[in-house]
C-alpha cells in the first residue's frame, strides 16, 4: 500500500493519473451536461424532458452516447479528410487541457503552474483553430461561413476576456490560480466579483462568446446556417465536438468561479468544510453553468456586426476604464493588493 502511494508521489505518474481522472470527469461532465440542458430546457418550456430511459430519464445521456458510438461516420466526398477528422480533436484537447490548472480544493490541482492564468488564456485561444479546421475541411458553404464567423468571434472576444482578468491579477500580484483563490478570503464580500463587478460581467459575457453559447452561437446558428461548422459531422466526431463544447463551457464556469467567486472558499467562515471544500467549488460552478443554460433558452441570437460592436465598442472600453480605476485605487490604498 505504501509503495503504491509512493509511486503516486512520483511527478510524471501523478500527473498522468490525475489528468486521466480529470479527463474522465470531463467526458462524464459533458454527458451529464447534455442531460442537464435537456432537463433545464424542459422546465423552462413547461414540459418534462427525457423521462423514459432509466429512473427519471437519467440514463438518457448513456443512450445518446452509445447510439452516437454506433453511428456511421460520414465524411463528405470532397472533404479534406485529415483536416475534417482532426478538427474535433483540435477542439476537444484545448477544452480538456485547461482543466489541468483548475484548483478544485486546496492542493487538489493537477499542475499548480505559477503562470496558470497565462496558460488558460493561451490554451483557450487554440479552440478557434478547431473551428476553422472543421469549417474548411467540410467543404460546404454553411460550414465555411460558420468557421469564418467562429474565427472572427473567438479572436475578437479574446481581447475583453484577457483585459477583464487583468484586474484580478493586479489585485493578487500573482498569475497562479491557487494564489488568486487564497487571496479572495473566506467571506463572500471579499471575493472579487463585488470589487471587480464590471470586470466580472465583462468576463462572463466574453466567456459566453468564447464558448459559443446563445446569444453568441453565431458559428452554429441552428436556424441560419444549420449548425455551421459542424453541419457535416456525424456519429462520434459530432459527439466529440459536442463534448468539447460542453467541456469548454464547464471550464469557463470553473475559471469564472476561480477568478471572481472565490473558488473553493466557503461564503462565510463558519461554513468551512475542511477537506470537503471542493463541494463549494462544485456548487458555484454548477450555478454559473445554470445561468449559461438559463440564458441559452431565454434570448435570441445577435448578428455578426452587432456582436463585433458589443465586443469592441462596449466591452473593451469598460475593461480599460476599470483597469485604470483599479490601478489608481491600488496606488492610493496599497493595502487592497495582496
Amino acid at each position: 500500500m505504501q509503495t503504491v502511494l509512493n509511486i503516486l508521489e512520483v511527478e510524471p505518474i501523478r500527473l498522468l493519473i490525475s489528468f486521466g481522472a480529470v479527463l474522465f470527469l470531463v467526458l462524464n461532465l459533458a454527458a451529464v451536461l447534455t442531460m442537464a440542458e435537456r432537463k433545464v430546457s424542459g422546465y423552462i418550456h413547461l414540459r418534462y424532458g427525457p423521462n423514459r430511459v432509466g429512473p427519471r430519464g437519467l440514463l438518457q445521456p448513456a443512450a445518446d452516447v452509445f447510439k452516437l458510438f454506433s453511428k456511421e461516420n460520414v465524411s463528405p466526398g470532397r472533404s479534406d479528410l485529415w483536416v475534417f477528422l482532426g478538427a474535433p480533436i483540435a477542439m476537444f484537447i484545448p477544452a480538456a487541457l485547461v482543466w489541468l490548472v483548475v484548483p478544485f480544493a486546496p492542493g487538489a490541482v493537477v499542475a499548480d503552474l505559477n503562470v496558470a492564468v497565462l496558460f488558460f488564456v493561451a490554451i483557450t485561444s487554440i479552440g478557434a483553430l478547431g473551428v476553422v479546421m472543421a469549417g474548411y475541411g467540410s467543404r460546404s458553404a454553411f460550414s465555411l461561413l460558420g468557421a469564418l464567423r467562429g474565427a472572427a468571434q473567438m479572436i475578437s472576444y479574446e481581447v475583453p476576456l484577457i483585459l477583464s482578468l487583468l484586474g484580478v491579477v493586479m489585485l493578487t500580484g500573482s498569475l497562479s490560480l491557487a494564489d488568486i483563490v487564497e487571496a479572495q478570503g473566506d467571506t463572500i464580500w471579499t471575493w472579487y466579483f463585488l470589487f471587480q463587478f464590471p470586470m466580472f460581467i465583462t468576463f462572463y459575457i466574453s466567456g459566453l462568446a468564447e464558448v459559443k453559447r446563445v446569444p453568441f452561437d453565431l458559428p452554429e446558428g441552428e436556424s441560419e446556417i444549420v449548425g455551421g461548422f459542424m453541419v457535416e459531422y456525424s456519429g462520434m466526431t459530432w459527439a466529440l465536438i459536442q463534448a468539447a463544447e460542453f467541456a469548454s463551457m464547464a471550464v469557463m464556469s470553473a475559471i469564472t468561479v476561480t477568478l471572481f467567486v472565490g473558488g473553493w472558499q466557503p461564503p462565510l467562515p463558519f461554513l468551512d468544510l475542511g477537506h470537503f471544500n471542493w463541494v463549494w467549488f462544485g456548487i458555484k460552478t454548477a450555478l454559473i453553468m445554470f445561468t449559461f443554460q438559463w440564458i441559452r433558452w431565454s434570448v435570441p441570437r445577435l448578428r455578426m456586426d452587432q456582436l463585433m460592436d458589443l465586443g469592441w465598442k462596449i466591452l473593451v472600453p469598460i475593461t480599460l476604464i476599470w483597469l485604470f480605476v483599479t490601478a489608481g485605487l491600488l496606488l492610493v490604498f496599497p493595502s487592497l493588493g495582496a
Partner: protein
Amino acid sequence: MLSEERRAHHEGALTEPASSRLVSPDIRDEFGLETIDMNMGPQHPAMHGLLRLILELDGETVVRCDPVMGYLHRCHEKIAESRMYPAVIPLTDRLDYFANMHNEHGYVLAVEDLLDVEIPPRAEYIRVLMCELMRLASHIPSIGFLMLELGAFTPILYAFRERERIQAIFEAVTGARMMFHYIRIGGVKADLPPDIPQKIWDYIESLEDNFQRDFVDLIAGNEIFISRTRNVGKMTQEQAVEMGVTGPALRCTGVDFDIRRDYPYSIYPELEFDVVTDSAGDVEASYRVRIAECLQSIRLIKQCLEQMPEGEVMGDTGRRIRPAEGEGFGRVESPRGEYAVHVVSDGSDTPYRVHYRDPSFCNMQLLQEIIPGHYLPDIMPIMGLVDPVSGGWDK
C-alpha cells in the same frame, strides 16, 4: 420598454438603407472579389416549409436572392376540376394549413356567389367565430416562429401551448384538429355543441391573461430582439403595394387596408373592430401589428359570442349543387392577407376552373425585392415578416 435615448441610438445606427451595403459589381470585378453561391432550402429550419432560396453572397451580405418554388406543388387547381363542388372544400383545407377555416370560407363564398343561396345568420356568426379563432391560432405561432428563427427557442413552445388549446376547441366543434371540412356551402356542418360557447369564453379570458405576459413582455422589450428586427426588412408603402403585398405585411407599412372592412363579407359590417396599422414597415412593426390583431380577434370573438342568434345553421342548397354557367368570386382576409377564390362553372357538377389567389404566393415576391443588401441572418426575420406558408404558395 426602452428609453427614448436607446431607441434613438438603434434608429440612428441603422437608418441607412440596406441596399447601401452592396458593393457595386464593377468594384468587385476590379479587385477580383468573388461571390459565393449558396443554396438555402428546401430542407432548412427557417424556410417555412419547402422554399428554396438561391443566394449570392458577398461575405455575409446577400447580393441576389432568387426564390424557387414548386417543392410542394400538389395540383390543387387541377384536382378541383374533377371533384364535385362540395368535395373541393376538404382540399382547400390543405392549401394554407395555418388558415384552414379561411380557405374554406373563401371557397364557399365563391360558390355561394354562383348559387345565390341564403345563409342563416347563426351560421354566419359561427363562421366568423371560427375564422377569428383560426386567426389567433395562426398569428400566435407566427410570432413564435419569428423568435425561433432569431434563435430564441422558448416562445414557440408557449405559442404552441395556446394553439393546442384552440385546436382542442376546434376538435370539439368540428371533429378534427386541423382539416376541418366545417364550413359548407350554405352554412356550416353542425351547430356548436351546447357547452362550447362557455368554453371559448373561458379560453379567451385565460388567453387575455397570458397574452401580455408571454408574447409581449417577454419579447417586445428585449434589446437583442429590437436590434435584430428594427429597420430590418424595411420597405416603403409604394414598394409593398407594387409587390402586391397584403395582410399584416402591408399594414405594418401604414397602408390602411383590410378586406374585412373595405370589401366586407359575412357579418363583419355588424361587428366592431379596428384595422391596426404601424408606420415603420420593418419586422418589428409586423410583430406589433400581429400582436394588436390578436387582441382585435379576441374582441371579435367576444362580440360573436355575445350577439350570436339562435336558429338553423344550414341553408337550403338542394341535394346536388349544380350552379348555372357563370363565375363566382370569394375573398376573405386570411391571417396572411387577401385570400381570393375564382370559380368558373360550366353548369355541371364539377367546377370548370378554380383559381386560388393565395397571400403567401403574392407576399413572397417581396423576398427578392428587399433581401438584397441585408446580411444573411436578416433573411430569417424577413421570412418572419412575410410569414409565408408552403402549402399556400405552392398550391
